[in-house]
């Protein structure tokens, strides 16, 4: 019964994504050359802000489930039919917004009168501006116009992302400085030094993918990932062309890890949350209250969403299904002149991938302890940076040797297999510590702890 409810909820989410995508395509087709206006409104306000808003609830609800709690479920609406039903804490989103908007907005007397209100804006705006170059759906023909779900498609592509991502640090460091509070200043300084450390790895980590797809534009990169590395040359019935797609994560697993870690540090979420440092200095927004604080919080979640979209576009094949169906689906719907449907289906696939990545980010935030400050700097300068440089050289050499990218993919699969084998290897026998799993209070219910999936099979290797 509960599983059915959960499946219905997932279906509602996917349906909402599909409906919003279809709306964007249809309206874009009606507007023709002015489609970027509706893209701006629907993609940024509709998709990014809505997902970011619901992520504030999801963070609390999902973390509760990971920690065997229930999570927020007390906010209800006293209307007939709704009374006493919390819908998984859905109304907490509204109560949070009302709370943030109606709280007293305290400004310290000695805070800088100009920069103090400016800092939340400077933190929030770049997060949304990042999204301008991210394509959400393919370019299709809707009522005679070529419509794609992308706000702008400049030649510099990913360079825009790097440039704007660096601007975000102005918001945090200005917040720290203008608050005239020593702890806020500490947080701001930490934020800026962390940004500097990880910006290098962020850029260099993507260099391999840019070389492999020989473009800086995200649409070109996604188009490059529609090709199959190995696969059938002709179509197999309804499955279409089946094969292993040239997804970035197969070509660049090391680059994926570097980029994901660096981008995670840019969002300033928990494994890298020293700028915030709730348990020690409270962070750069310690003096902020009301919706100014809310802007800092929502920009953090918007960054989570946008980081997921960029990662999806570069490493997870964007809107492609990848392994099959793509060619038949595209041909059938193009012949039927249903461009909007094709675009909406692909955009839904894109957003589902984004949501899965959002879940991964939230799970990482609730699984791992924080890094110490010197560990953050060590990871950034001594591990990620050399690794990124080595990745660039190896990638370049392999592309030079084999322009079909197959050699690169073989190396990528070897790396993935190595990591997976290490992960699934049975832990050290007696004497060494067992996996922590057996001692979880979760199993205090009297259940035998289930082995990790694949742990048994890996032992036969």
């Amino acid at each position, binding site marked *: 019964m509960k599983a059915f409810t959960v499946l219905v909820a997932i279906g509602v989410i996917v349906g909402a994504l599909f409906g919003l995508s279809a709306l964007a395509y249809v309206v874009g087709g009606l507007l023709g050359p002015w489609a970027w206006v509706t893209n701006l409104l629907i993609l940024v306000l509709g998709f990014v802000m809505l997902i970011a808003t619901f992520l504030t609830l999801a963070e609390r609800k*999902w973390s509760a*489930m990971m920690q*065997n*709690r*229930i999570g927020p479920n007390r906010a209800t609406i006293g209307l007939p039919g709704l009374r006493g039903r919390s819908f998984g804490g859905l109304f907490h989103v509204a109560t949070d917004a009302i709370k943030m908007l109606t709280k007293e907005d305290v400004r310290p007397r000695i805070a800088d009168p100009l920069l103090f209100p400016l800092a939340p804006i400077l933190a929030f705006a770049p997060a949304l501006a990042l999204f301008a170059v991210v394509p959400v759906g393919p370019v299709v023909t809707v009522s005679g116009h070529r419509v794609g779900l992308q706000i702008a498609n400049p030649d510099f592509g990913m360079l825009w992302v790097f440039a704007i991502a660096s601007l975000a640090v102005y918001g945090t460091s200005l917040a720290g400085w203008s608050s005239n509070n020593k702890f806020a200043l500490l947080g701001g300084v930490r934020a800026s030094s962390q940004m500097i450390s990880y910006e290098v790895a962020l850029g260099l980590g993507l260099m391999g993918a840019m070389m492999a797809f020989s473009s800086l534009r995200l649409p070109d990169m996604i188009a490059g990932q529609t090709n199959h590395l190995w696969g059938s040359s002709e179509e197999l019935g309804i499955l279409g062309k089946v094969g292993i797609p040239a997804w970035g994560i197969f070509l660049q697993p090391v680059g994926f890890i570097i980029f994901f870690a660096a981008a995670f540090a840019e969002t300033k979420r928990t494994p890298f949350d020293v700028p915030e440092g709730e348990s020690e200095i409270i962070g750069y927004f310690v003096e902020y209250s009301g919706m100014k604080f809310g802007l800092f919080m929502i920009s953090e979640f918007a960054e989570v969403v946008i980081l997921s979209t960029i990662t999806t576009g570069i490493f997870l094949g964007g809107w492609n299904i990848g392994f099959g169906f793509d060619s038949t689906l595209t041909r059938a719907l193009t012949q039927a002149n249903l461009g909007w449907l094709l675009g909406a289906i692909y955009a839904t696939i894109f957003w589902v991938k984004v949501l899965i990545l959002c879940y991964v980010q939230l799970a990482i935030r609730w*699984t*791992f302890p924080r890094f110490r400050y010197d560990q953050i700097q060590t990871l950034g300068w001594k591990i990620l940076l050399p690794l990124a440089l080595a990745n660039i050289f190896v990638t370049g050499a392999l592309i030079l040797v084999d322009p079909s990218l197959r050699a690169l993919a073989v190396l990528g699969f070897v790396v993935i297999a190595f990591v997976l084998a290490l992960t699934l290897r049975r832990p050290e026998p007696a004497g060494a*510590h067992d996996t*922590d799993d057996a001692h979880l209070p979760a199993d205090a219910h009297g259940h035998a702890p289930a082995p990790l999936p694949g742990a048994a099979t890996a032992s036969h290797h």
Partner: protein
Amino acid sequence: MAYNATKNPTTDLRERLYIPELLRGLAITTRHFLRNLFNPRDTNTQVVDRKGPNLVSTVSYPEEKTPYPPGYRGLHRLVPRDDGKPRCVACYMCATICPAQCIYIEAGEYETTDPSSESRVIEKYPTQFVIDELRCIVCGLCVDACPKDAIRMDTGLHTPSEYNRSGFVWDIPKLLQGPPVSHPSDPWNKRASSAPPPHQQREPHTRVGEGLVALKLPSGEPHKRTEVTDQAIPVTRFLKD
């Protein structure tokens, strides 16, 4: 169970690479997430007895209440007699022993001249019996001190929340609840015959039929107030309004 500290974890390739351990950690978290997401929660209030794949160990308090152990000291109650009047004889034992001085009693006397009155077996009754539940420290000394088994803390309830302090001052209509108690040694049970006592249907001080009934004085006579000279106790009187 204990962590074996003899092995240096940094020598393990898996832990030095960090990524495999990261994935394993994510697997644990995700497994908990999926188990709790897709399975209904067992609402057994005894958390250790919960069954099923859902691992949530929360007891949602107002809807699910863990039963208290026997001997738990909860909210007070004034124990009724079989006829619904409190067993209390206004002896002031509980008010005297109360370390928090949260009990305030005003005693009334039965008429001694009326041959049919209850004074043949009991002399006094409480016209006011007030407990300030905010001052109460739930020590249970009043229960021990009572010679008539007239006050107990066996309701198994907490003091409910109120919006102002006067709501926490409980008087006879609120305190008089629960099953009546009768002992063979009770003076009103020591009658010559088993016939119903003639005073049973008369209106004495309280008559709790439906529950909360305003205090009434015996037969409309002028209020015989017992003068309280101790200044420490009547604080609760002023809290009342």
